[in-house]
């Protein structure tokens, strides 16, 4: 085997793996806190990439209208749930979260001059797409908070379907590719490392560190961990599990969007491209048993490498190989542990 080719493939694998690792982490986070298997994660990747690409071309991204619509719907759903305790502060909080946020984002996008540079574009993208996640939690999952994992999973598939179709409506069927964060290329030994790759791996590592600090040092982070360990117990000590749920979705939405921004310069993204990317994050999360963060991150790098190697040696069967990796893992988990009961 040619050593140089292998190195290049591994480098590719690590860069893709870094993205899968981010997605896997947020999938584990959402599952642990809310028991929702977050299938629509992939749509956040696609929305992030396409919003960023639109801003990068100086166009107004369609997703801001979707944000406004989701905010409005979440407001109505929120009013429905607080209708018995319709206090002014509760309604005000709801209005800030569901109406003011989209309005401010709209204003920010409107005030920003076209093509403000990649960093501002990335921040605007995050501001547009991320808030959709807690709105979706409010609309779809909060009313099902006590349902079984299976029901939540089916609902999750429903949200995926709806977001897929909405992506087509608001972004159209064309694919886009955006400018990278860096055009630089660094020669290290026989390898040429593109600047974008360093951005991706660096962002992943920074985020992981940030998440670690968040969970370890902040009260919100500890509340999330408490909710993950025991919902009822968390409620008894005064943690509002619905708030925890929205927070988990907010983090997941931000991570998904950021992943989209990071891959938009690497490949042409279509409205439906996110699903397969998200599923690879899933393969990694499942290898980690949907509970272990470090295992999921390691598995993500493995998935990235398997993917890049198989795309070189058996490109037609790339997806087959990546998704078949899950079978021996499930078999191993199945044989090792006793039968689990929900």
């Amino acid at each position, binding site marked *: 085997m040619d050593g140089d080719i292998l190195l290049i493939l591994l480098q590719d694998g690590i860069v893709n793996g870094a993205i899968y690792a981010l997605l896997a982490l947020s999938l584990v986070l959402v599952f642990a806190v809310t028991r929702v*298997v977050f299938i629509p994660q992939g749509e956040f990747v696609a929305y992030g990439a396409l919003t960023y690409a639109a801003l990068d071309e100086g166009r107004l991204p369609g997703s801001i209208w979707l944000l406004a619509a989701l905010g409005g719907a979440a407001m109505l759903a929120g009013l429905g749930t607080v209708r018995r305790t319709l206090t002014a502060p509760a309604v005000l909080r709801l209005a800030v979260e569901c109406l003011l946020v989209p309005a401010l984002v709209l204003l920010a996008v409107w005030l920003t001059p076209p093509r403000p540079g990649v960093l501002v574009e990335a921040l605007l993208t995050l501001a547009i797409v991320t808030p959709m996640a807690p709105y979706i939690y409010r*609309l*779809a999952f909060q*009313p*099902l908070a006590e*349902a079984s*994992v*299976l*029901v939540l*999973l*089916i*609902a999750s*598939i*429903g*949200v*995926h*379907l*709806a*977001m*897929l*179709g*909405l992506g*087509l*409506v608001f972004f*159209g*069927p064309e694919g886009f590719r955006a400018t990278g964060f860096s055009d630089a290329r660094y020669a290290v030994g026989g390898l040429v490392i593109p600047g974008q790759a360093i951005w991706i791996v660096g962002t992943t590592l920074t985020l992981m560190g940030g998440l670690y600090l968040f969970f370890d040092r902040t009260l919100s982070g500890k509340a999330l961990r408490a909710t993950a360990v025991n919902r009822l117990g968390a409620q008894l000590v005064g943690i509002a599990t619905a708030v925890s749920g929205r927070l988990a979705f907010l983090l997941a939405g931000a991570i998904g969007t950021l992943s989209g921004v990071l891959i938009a310069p690497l490949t042409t993204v279509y409205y439906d491209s996110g699903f*397969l990317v998200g*599923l690879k994050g*899933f*393969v990694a999360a*499942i290898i980690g048993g949907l509970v272990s963060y470090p295992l999921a991150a390691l598995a993500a790098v493995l998935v990235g490498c398997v993917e890049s190697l198989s795309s070189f040696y058996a490109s*037609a*069967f*790339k*997806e*087959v190989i990546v*998704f*078949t990796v*899950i*079978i021996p893992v*499930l*078999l191993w*988990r*199945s*044989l090792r*542990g006793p*039968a*689990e*009961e*929900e």
Partner: protein
Amino acid sequence: MRRLLPAAILVAWLCVPFVPGVPNFWITLANYAGLASIVAIGLVVLTGYGGMTSFGQATFMGFGAYTTALLTTQAGVSPWLALPAAVAASGIAALLIGAVTLRLSGHYLALGTIAWSVSLYYVFGNLDLFGRNDGISAIPPLRLGELALTSSRSYFVVVWVAVAAVLLLTRNLLDSRVGRAIRALRGGTAAAASFGVNLPGTRVLAFTYAAMLAGLAGWLYAHMQRSVNPTPFGLNAGIEYLLMAVVGGAGSMWGALLGAGLVTAVNDQLQNWLPRLLGHQGNYETIVFGILLVVVLQTSPEGIWPHVRGLFGPARPRTRQVADAAALPVRTLPDRGAPVLAAVGLRKTFGGLVAVNDVALHLDAGEIVGLIGPNGAGKSTTFNLLTGVARPTAGQVRFLGEDVSASTPPRVAALGIARSFQHVKLVPGMSVLENVALGAHLRGGAGPLHALLRLDRAEEARLFAEAQRQIDRVGLAAFTSQQADSLALGQQRVVEIARALCLDPVLLLLDEPAAGLRHAEKQDLAALLRRLRADGMTILLVEHDMDFVMNLTDRLVVMEFGAKLAEGPAASIRADPRVIEAYLGSAA
């Protein structure tokens, strides 16, 4: 009359395509709805009854379709001969895939189905054998003698006869010993295992059956379209079948039929109208279906069918004729006073916590022993060690001379230990009679094939006669055909005792049987347990009601902090200073 009505409806429905003026387009749509119904009925068995879910049914349909496509185009096999091969191919694929995930909790199976759906989609699309993305065309049509069934009108008859056959077979399967075991998967797997249900086997069975129905639908699809390609067998199609089952109502086969018809018709209209409204071609219908799925789960998790069914008035509870069935053979109980169960040095640790600490316990035939102690004393853990639910860290349990320390719950049940649960575990939605009949699972032997072909009727009658006998014995005859979950909690406990008795046990383990019973009911229960003792049964019970325990038991075992504190007849235990201290605290 009740038997003739469905047949009459079927015949009338089969005549529809031959009524002049019915548009061809409607017939085609009805054919697709029929195919989808078959897949969705499989999901009713899997999801509605078995509590599992698959997003990959379209992939199993693909196994069936590609099998028949290859056999008929490459090997020249007649389509009719390819049918068993197509169904078997789907079944074997399900066995293999199921074996990998079925011991894990439910969402792994569902996620696994997503992964292999994506994976196999690319396998179908990239192998020359399967014609890559172009698929396989020129598949021969079905023939009846010289008549080729190429028109959608003639195919309508084929599809809907198949639907009727699937409805009949599935009803037979669900209304059987095996079917009750599948339903028991939803009532708590611990209970199902405690009366001998082989959990992994039952899960694989439900999964394989659903896949074989999908394989049948795939075979029908291949000879209807006369060509196959990967698209209709991908993940999106699989999601759509689940959508049909959930929206229609996964709890009933009629829900599957309703959902399949509704989603097929709505899908067609949406694909027609939405692109016109939005000015682009595209799969916009996913928005509507996605939102519909979430809304149905939020507002009507049982689907639409129960509401439709409600329009025709309340369902009549089913009554069974069980009177003249022959009795089941019964075990010979050991002679009174012979050793039944002996546990030595029984120990169970969870991490650093010693839940059960070197407990010795012996039970002799025909005695009632009470296991008492403060909360957290290790009584329930001891129960779990005796019934194979948990494996002891050290020590040995011998039952009728056999070492059962490492046995599984079904093995323990087969040897003759039956139990009830502290937290009642009955199957919701099933009648008291059916729940109790579950206890007789090991006393019948009819398998899925017997059930499908209704060769199990004589055995079924005997099982239900036994269940009825046990219901009468515990004094719940008035509730026989009521839904078990509609009873008061105390009565549900008694239903569990009847179910345990159906096992024909040597030893009965009862976890807090009197909790939630009223005074008179407690006296009835005590009288029942005394009668059982008189018949030679051995009983071990955990109970907090001291009056009940003191008056009933021959002997008491007191546990505290995982260890045995005292043992003896009620009078001496009552006077034992250590026991008084454990319960009331020290006098000083």
